[in-house]
């Protein structure tokens, strides 16, 4: 399984804080995880502002994802 988490405005658009997705044989990318999330949630999330992390590190959307990984999607950060 792939553990997917959502934060801030992305969490509100998806309507939940996390989701579990089956990991296909051979794995796939963060981009493909996003496509599956959009299908499950029934909402478009991708725009220029969306950021992603893999196992709690910022990553580009082309990064490969493996079984048991934690992927998160969120808007640009605004701390400090």
């Amino acid at each position: 399984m792939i553990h997917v988490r959502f934060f801030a405005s992305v969490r509100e658009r998806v309507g939940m804080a996390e989701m579990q997705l089956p990991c296909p044989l051979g794995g796939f990318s963060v981009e493909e995880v996003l496509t599956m999330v959009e299908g499950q949630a029934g909402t478009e999330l991708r725009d220029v502002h969306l950021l992603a992390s893999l196992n709690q590190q910022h990553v580009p959307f082309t990064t490969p994802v493996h079984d048991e990984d934690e992927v998160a999607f969120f808007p640009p950060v605004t701390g400090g």
Partner: protein
Amino acid sequence: MVVKVQEEDFDVSAECAGMAESKGAGALVTFVGTVRDYSDASDILSLDIEHYPGMTEKELERVSREAAQQYDILDSLIIHRYGSLQPEDNIVLVAVWSRHRAAAFDACRFLIDVLKSSAPFWKKEMTPQGSRWVTDCPGCRAGSREGHSHAPHAAPHLLHSR
């Protein structure tokens, strides 16, 4: 090097007094970020700060290590709060110790700038007109809709074009 992510308030003097590696320092530079009572469009009644537990600490530790490599400093401390805050409440403390003042000033500025563009915190303002997520994107303000970065001081892996 100490990093704390917490809901409760902090006392700057008490927090700075306990740093073991600060011995021998000739300079201590601190930055404290607080909640403003206004934004571009409205008064602010309160501010909710959401964070990504685990990743937040890792990012703050990463930028602290980066500061220690880039500047001649003895120690650093970052405390960042989350939860519901009121105007004038403390949000973040960055403190840096060094033998000479220049390194402490430079490293403190570096830490708060990088933290603001990479640590996973999100602010939501509560106003008389309702709530809204804070957005801060120079590229968006300049009107660029594609290919701009939201992390001007962060590593290239934060750049993306979609």
